[in-house]
């Protein structure tokens, strides 16, 4: 067989290849050594961490460009074989700038040319966006609950997608141009939290206090429920027109139909809240409408009419709020602009607002209220902080006010309306995340009718930190305890100006009688065994954070000594107060000594805390 020359073989191969490659592939000219030309533009010039960079290249060649390869540094992103030559690069976690992109154009002969462009990566901060208006924001894990730091924020709307992250105090700032946006929060261990229809106006907006709850189980899906809100016109459910806020007559109320659908069948919708005058949630924080799902249903539709008190006296252009939760605590909030026409004006003459008081309440228990405002205020994960506002704006024969606006300020200069409540209310609660231990907060109550309003004086309170009792003695499960023991305990920190301790030894569980020392369980009175560290009860010994009192020091016990070989329970209700009484912090209070609220199954506001079950010896 005759040997073919190598060059001929190559030519043959080249011919075969080109024959398979397609008709528009340029045929290499023997000896093509001319490089292509290429340019590259990477946009945007500054990209958010986790954002997307779009790469556009132009390339040209004397014969023809067969492909453009795009690289970030030395990492190949993709290749494009046809004009226009583009690529996109979505930045993964941890990719930070500056980044250099390369576009490499190749021709069939293997000649290449390269162009570069760089991009700066904006590390995610707690400032989201760079628009003209400002929205201060706080994220907490419930109304009155602890802040959520480090939660990834995604804002979508005019201007595309913007990212941020809540700071160590759960705070963030939205810098957005006026418009309507959706906002989403994501953090491992937490449920989904999403707001739709969030309206930004020019200048500084009112503070967004919102909630992202701990997921019930991280093994269950953390996707936000899908919510649709329609208005009812007669019996028909109609979509809201985004261009024109729907109008409702106050006398008829606001009827809406809401569908709350869990996005994964493992979850079920649980609650749908609807309200005006403030984002609705737990009834503890204000009147609203609530619907509860039969959890066998993955989608749940309910019709609700806000009327009378649940309109909270709100009139004119306003926002309708809908909040939906599912069984894994995923949360979606929808805001719809509406107008409530004051078709039956209230012209009841207004009296002055009397006896207005603000008191901050801190409890060492995680309650997990469902509410829109979140507090980051709660000092620790295992605490809850809110402010009770009370006032007296009496109704008379002529009726009562239409509503009451709660104005709030952090500096006693700039006040903004925090929420509106119905005219018959004499209490309101603030569970904002912006509440902070040691930071004074100011309020004014403004009662109003359709034409005028009257304000209270400015109220002030400074929340106290939470504290717990530790190192209780006789200690849990101790035996052989003295029949005349010294009772001692520590506080985790000294909070406020004076600490109050109600000490009880209950003959429980062995039970000859409930109230062996400390009559509270039997009489309901907590005066007999209340010890305070302001010097008024000298029987209470106090050194630093440690306290002690001798059993039966006040001679009120049922017997001078505990019975021998008998089981008792040592229990406390403990709270700290500020000097003026405008703030209280409750460490434990199963028995409702310090605050009348049943947050426990059979007990009062704070059943977290230490009890000690001990057994005496024979001496």
């Amino acid at each position: 067989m005759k040997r073919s020359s190598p060059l001929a073989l190559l030519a043959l191969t080249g011919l075969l290849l080109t024959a398979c490659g397609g008709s528009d592939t340029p045929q290499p000219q023997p000896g093509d050594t001319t490089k292509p030309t290429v340019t590259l533009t990477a946009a945007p010039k500054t990209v958010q961490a986790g954002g997307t960079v779009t790469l556009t290249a132009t390339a040209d060649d004397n014969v023809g460009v067969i492909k453009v390869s795009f690289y970030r540094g030395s990492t190949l992103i993709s290749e494009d074989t046809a004009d226009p030559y583009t690529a996109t690069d979505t930045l993964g976690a941890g990719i930070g700038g500056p980044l250099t992109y390369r576009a490499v154009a190749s021709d069939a002969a293997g000649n290449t040319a390269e162009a570069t462009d760089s991009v700066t990566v904006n590390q995610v901060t707690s400032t989201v966006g760079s628009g003209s208006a400002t929205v201060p924001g706080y994220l907490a894990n419930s109304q009155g609950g602890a802040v959520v730091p480090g939660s990834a924020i995604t804002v979508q709307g005019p201007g595309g997608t913007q990212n941020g992250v809540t700071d160590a105090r759960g705070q963030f700032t939205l810098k957005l141009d006026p418009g309507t946006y959706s906002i989403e929060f994501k953090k491992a261990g937490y449920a989904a939290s999403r707001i739709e229809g969030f309206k930004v106006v020019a200048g500084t907006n009112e503070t967004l206090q919102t909630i992202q709850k701990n997921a019930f189980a991280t093994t269950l899906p953390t996707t936000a429920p899908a919510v649709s809100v329609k208005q009812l016109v007669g019996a028909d459910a109609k979509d809201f027109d985004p261009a024109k806020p729907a109008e409702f007559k106050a006398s008829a109320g606001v009827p809406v139909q809401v569908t709350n659908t869990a996005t994964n069948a493992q979850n079920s919708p649980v609650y749908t809240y609807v309200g005006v005058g403030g984002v609705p949630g737990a009834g503890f924080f204000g009147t609203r409408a609530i619907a509860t799902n039969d959890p066998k249903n993955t989608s749940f539709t309910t019709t609700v009419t806000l009327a009378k008190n649940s309109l909270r006296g709100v009139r004119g252009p306003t926002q309708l709020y809908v909040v939906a939760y599912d069984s894994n605590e995923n949360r979606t909030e929808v805001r719809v602009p509406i107008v409530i026409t004051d078709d039956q004006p209230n012209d009841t003459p207004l009296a002055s607002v009397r006896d207005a008081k603000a008191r901050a309440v801190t409890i060492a228990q995680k309650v997990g209220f469902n509410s829109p405002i979140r507090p980051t205020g709660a000092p620790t994960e295992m605490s809850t902080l809110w402010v009770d506002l009370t006032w007296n704006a009496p109704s008379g024969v002529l009726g009562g006010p239409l509503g009451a606006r709660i104005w709030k300020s952090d500096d006693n200069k700039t006040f903004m309306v925090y929420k509106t409540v119905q005219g018959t209310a004499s209490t309101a609660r603030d569970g904002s995340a912006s509440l902070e231990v040691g930071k004074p907060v100011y309020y004014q109550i403004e009662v109003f009718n359709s034409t005028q309003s009257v304000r209270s004086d400015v109220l002030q309170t400074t929340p106290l930190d939470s504290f717990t009792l530790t190192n209780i003695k006789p200690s849990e499960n101790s035996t052989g305890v003295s029949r005349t023991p010294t009772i001692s305990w520590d506080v985790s920190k000294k909070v406020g100006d004076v600490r109050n301790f109600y000490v009880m030894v209950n003959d429980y569980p062995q039970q000859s009688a409930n109230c062996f020392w400390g009559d509270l369980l039997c009489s309901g009175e907590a005066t007999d065994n209340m010890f305070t560290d302001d010097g008024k009860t000298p029987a209470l010994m106090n050194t630093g954070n440690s306290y002690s009192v001798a059993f039966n020091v006040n001679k009120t016990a049922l017997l001078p000594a505990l019975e021998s070989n008998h089981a008792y329970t040592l229990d406390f209700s403990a709270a700290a107060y500020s000097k003026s009484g405008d703030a209280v912090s409750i460490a434990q209070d199963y028995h409702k000594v310090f605050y009348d609220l049943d947050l426990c199954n059979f007990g009062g506001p704070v059943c977290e805390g230490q009890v000690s079950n001990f057994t005496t010896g024979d001496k």
Partner: protein
Amino acid sequence: MNRRLVFGALSAALLLAGCNTASTPQTTTATPPKLDLSSYRTLGSALGQTLPPVSSMLKTGQEGDSSQELVIAYQDRAFVDRLAAHLSARVGGDLPQLGLALLALPEQYSAKRAAAALSLSPHSGLRFAEANNYDAKLPEIPQSSEAGSKLSAQATDPDPLSIKQWWIAQVSADKVRDLATGKGVIVGVVDDDFDRQHEDLKAAGKIVTGIDTSTGKELTPDMPLTNGAHGSGSAGTIAERLGNGVGGAGIAPDAILMPVRIFSPGFSGSFNVARGLVYAVDHGAQVLNNSWGGGGYTQIIKEAVDYALSKNVVVVGSAGNDYRAQMSGPGAYTGAINVGASAGDDMKANFSNIGLRNDIYAPGDNGLTTYINAGLKSPEREQSYGLFNGTSMAAPVISGAAALLLEVNPKLTPYQVKKILAATGDPMKDPRTQGFNRVNVLKAVQAVKAGQIPADGGSVEVVVVDKAEASPITGTDVNLVPLDGQNRGMPYLGRTGNGRLAASLPGAFDPSGAARFFGVEPGRYRVTVAGPSVNVFGGTRDNIVGEINVQSGKNQQLSYTHQVDFYEYSQDAKGNDGRNNTPALATDLTFIPASAFAQGLLFGGTFDNANYVYAPPTTGKDVDHLKFAVGAGQTLTVEALARALGSSAVVQADLLDASGAVVATGKPSAATGRDSVVSFKAPAKGNYIVRFSNQTANEGLGAFYTSIVAIK
């Protein structure tokens, strides 16, 4: 292994015989001459025939009774009839399995005063009396207000809602279906009623007849729901049906449910609850689920729990929803399983009670099951489901788990079931529940199938009686303190009674016979038997300490004696309480006919002013006065012994007339070992007072005496 209650036999010997069996004293100062007092009948036995005067049971308005019902724990059923006739009361219920009867007292009587009057001194035929005012609660769970209306289309899925039952997967109950389903095991749902017609509970043979304890009538499977939703939540958690095209599935889908309705919606009272538990046990329940609590200790329910445990029935209770280490409900009695609630990721449900008393955790939050919307009407109600929560849900998870184990091995004892479930669980991840497990039913069932059965627990019965009459002493604390770390180092607590201190419940005493402990972890224990509660019978608190070795599968019976003065407590003519230190306050025994004393009646007393702490303080030495009715021409003879019994006292007996004047002085009789013998022939019918005084300065512990009083 069925263990019958043996206490009955033991105490019969002590009570009905009415004879003094303990003639050997505790103290050992000198060697006493041997005395045989066993032939004498005791005063306590005579009191069994003669009942306290009705005047001692009338309402004064201070008692705070919440019911007219009196529970009588009887040794002899005839005693109940005698007492009922005496008070013109109706016998409202009888529970022979526990020896409990219920009397409905006419309006003029106070149940608490009646219980107190009956408890002051022993009455043969009576074990204890307690006013039926124990109150328990059904834990509140937020109810749906406005339910969503639209039913979503169900897929053709054998259990379409099971995808939403995170808690089933969390305990691996979905993986155990081929191994065990609880088939044939009856579980009593002790709760409010459950909906027998629910689409995912109703099936042939799945629900058996139970009892409505508020009326005593049966609840049959065809009857509609009476009221309530909570019971349906418990029932579904235990045994929601599997593979029938609707709903989800429970832990033991083939278990059989028996309703034991104790909330209607009010609590039906401890006697009725005891009746319900006994009914369930007697009608074949192998597990009793108790998702309720809040009332602390009551002897009546403790006895019903003991009845169940003695018949090898597993008793499961909720630990409570109050965030703390606190006893709540039947789960805390020795031998029961006390269940805490876990949540997602094996964290503790925030509200769950904690502490050493919990045996195990089980999911108790966001639990989709047949927790109906009770606001709906049929048939929608029978197709409704809800998110159950609380330790109310955790307990039924364990009850279902127990049913699975008992299907595989019906011979498991309640102790073994508890041990297996606790040991085969997975560790809780919450720092607040370190060292405790969340149930894993797959591993538990596998362990039983592989024959990995732990040794059974043991049981202990402790009887405490008085020295003189050998009558049971109430209000005596008996504790078993582990010496080798058993029971997580926690003492088992018991009482021979349930007395209440006067300041909390005026005048109420609730005596009982024995302290019982079922399901004790084997090992060495220090037994502490504290003396009579200073508030009940008074007396210096005498502490007996012993050591026992509790052995697997064995029952031990212990008996101890204390000195106690049953007769110290008295009332003057105006009804004021006091000690019998003066003739005016002499203990009134005149209602006992003289004929009862014909052969002499024996009783004991003490020289001790530290008893009855709520009586006005006394100065001087303790002197005891007791008053008897003597007919004309009859002779009253009193013999008193102390020294010969090893007492540190020397007792002097004198006779006084009704005005308090001495009519006869006692003299020693060395030959018969009596410290003092005195006699008087009454010229006319009247009341005479016997005065016992102490010739030594020794008072308190060790200063006791015994006396025989004869009237011929």
